[in-house]
């Protein structure tokens, strides 16, 4: 860790980046096993004085849906879910994501859990933020082995939603739907362009000079640690213990 590096953890930086990506919207939903997106959503809500509304599907307290698991999908179909987060075992340069397998699906060499809600939500949620902390040629590939959900669709396919960005442990990409390509927007402090080029399996656009991802402000860090961290700890105790050094006996 460089001595110039400010006092925050990687999780705090990524949550801060994602919270900025959320922007001024009405409703953010966060799926299961997504502690950094959950942190980002709660941070955005806290900074917005209660806006956006946030539904953490894995939480009892922070999930306002009352119509069962189907309600998230209906709500998204109605156009009410502004932001959702998706990950991928593989993500390719056209923002296709693979959550299923490598090899023949009936006899795969590697099997992942499955597509979850991706093959619907990726199409109908206007701002899908992709996240994958592991930034490697294993995860960011030229072409996914199985398309759980495609990054873009032909013009005649109903698709009000799709990817807007990809946040990794090394950088932030934006996604340009028209060009079907990622664009490197900023490099996280402590990382380099050369390193990103080495570890990314797909080609991407960039400016000649790529910005450094801004560090979280002191106020953002304060809110995240004092208000958001205890909320996150109720759902993800192990994560919170590591990211915020709080709670969790384990």
């Amino acid at each position, binding site marked *: 860790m460089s001595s110039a590096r400010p006092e925050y953890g990687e999780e705090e930086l990524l949550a801060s980046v994602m919270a900025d990506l959320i922007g001024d919207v009405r409703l953010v939903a966060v799926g*299961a*096993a997504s502690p950094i997106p959950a942190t980002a959503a709660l941070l955005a809500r806290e900074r917005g004085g209660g806006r956006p509304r946030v539904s953490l*599907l*894995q939480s*009892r307290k922070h999930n306002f*849906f*009352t*119509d*069962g*698991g*189907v*309600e998230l*999908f209906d709500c998204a*179909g109605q156009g009410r879910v502004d932001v959702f987060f998706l990950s991928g075992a593989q993500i390719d340069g056209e923002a296709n994501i693979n*959550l*299923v*397998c490598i090899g023949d*699906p*009936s*006899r*795969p*060499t*590697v*099997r*992942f*859990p*499955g*597509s*979850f*809600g*991706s*093959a*619907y*939500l*990726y*199409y*109908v949620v206007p701002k899908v933020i992709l996240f994958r902390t592991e930034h490697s040629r294993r995860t960011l590939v030229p072409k996914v082995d*199985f*398309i*759980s*959900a*495609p990054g873009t*669709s*032909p013009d*005649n*396919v*109903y698709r009000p939603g799709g990817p807007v960005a990809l946040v990794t442990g090394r950088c932030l990409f934006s996604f340009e739907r028209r060009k079907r390509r990622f664009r490197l927007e900023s490099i996280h402090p402590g990382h380099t362009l050369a390193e990103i080029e080495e570890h990314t399996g797909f080609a991407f656009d960039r400016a000649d000079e790529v910005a450094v991802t801004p560090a979280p402000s002191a106020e953002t860090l304060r809110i995240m640690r004092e208000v958001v961290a205890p909320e996150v700890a109720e759902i*993800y105790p*192990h994560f919170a213990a590591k990211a915020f050094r709080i709670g969790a006996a384990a």
Partner: protein
Amino acid sequence: MTVIAERLEDALARISDGCMLAAPNESAGVSMEATRALIRRGIRRLHLVALPTSTLQADLLIGAGAIATLETSAVSLGEIGLAPRFTAAVKSGAIVMKDATCAALYAALQAAEKGIPFMPLRGLIGSDLARYRPEWRVIDNPYGHDDPIVLLPAIKPDVALFHAPMADRAGNVWIGRERDLAILAHAAKATVVTVERLHEANLLDDPVLAAGTLPGVYVDAVAVAPRGAWPLGLPDHYTADMAHLADYARLAATAEGFARYLGEHVDVKRAA
């Protein structure tokens, strides 16, 4: 009329080899007690529909050789990691895996709920899921212009099986906000429920409880099984037994370890 079964095994009598069994995921209420009883009985060739995903229930049934076909959107052990028996069975081709996505499973079960042969759904087009599901037909939306949309055939399970906080003697089951349980019961031909406890009054007599109650008309059998979701959690009642699940994940990494788990935790019925 709903049977309030003295013995769990009696309530499970209508779940037969080869049937299509539908179950919710752990955030709604999985009957693990019934799952263990079915494995003890030696159930075989199930077509399990897990709405919309599964964890330990699918993994345990797969490891025990009870499943021929699995239709769901994902199987894992959540924060603990991959589901070992599921992963092994898909890789070896021991089960037929019908990969879905959550919204498609809901829509197909809701088609059965509404008594319609199919339901249209947005999304899906261009996903490889659709490549392996010839029954997902693409039609041109009759209300649009050059607007392809997927149709999903109704899924009508033979039996829905789940765990809930309480039932009354008329067979009404309190499901609270876990409306997925109502979708399952409406869609399935028969429904079997385990509950934490019996509620002595009629649940429908109290308007506040009635709002979260599945009427007994859908429920064929109820059995009391305290902590019946263990080692999974039951919302608002108890949380998952993470230490036990971690032990399971470790043991189930090998066929031998899984057999040992069955011997220790499934073959012998838990003390009540």
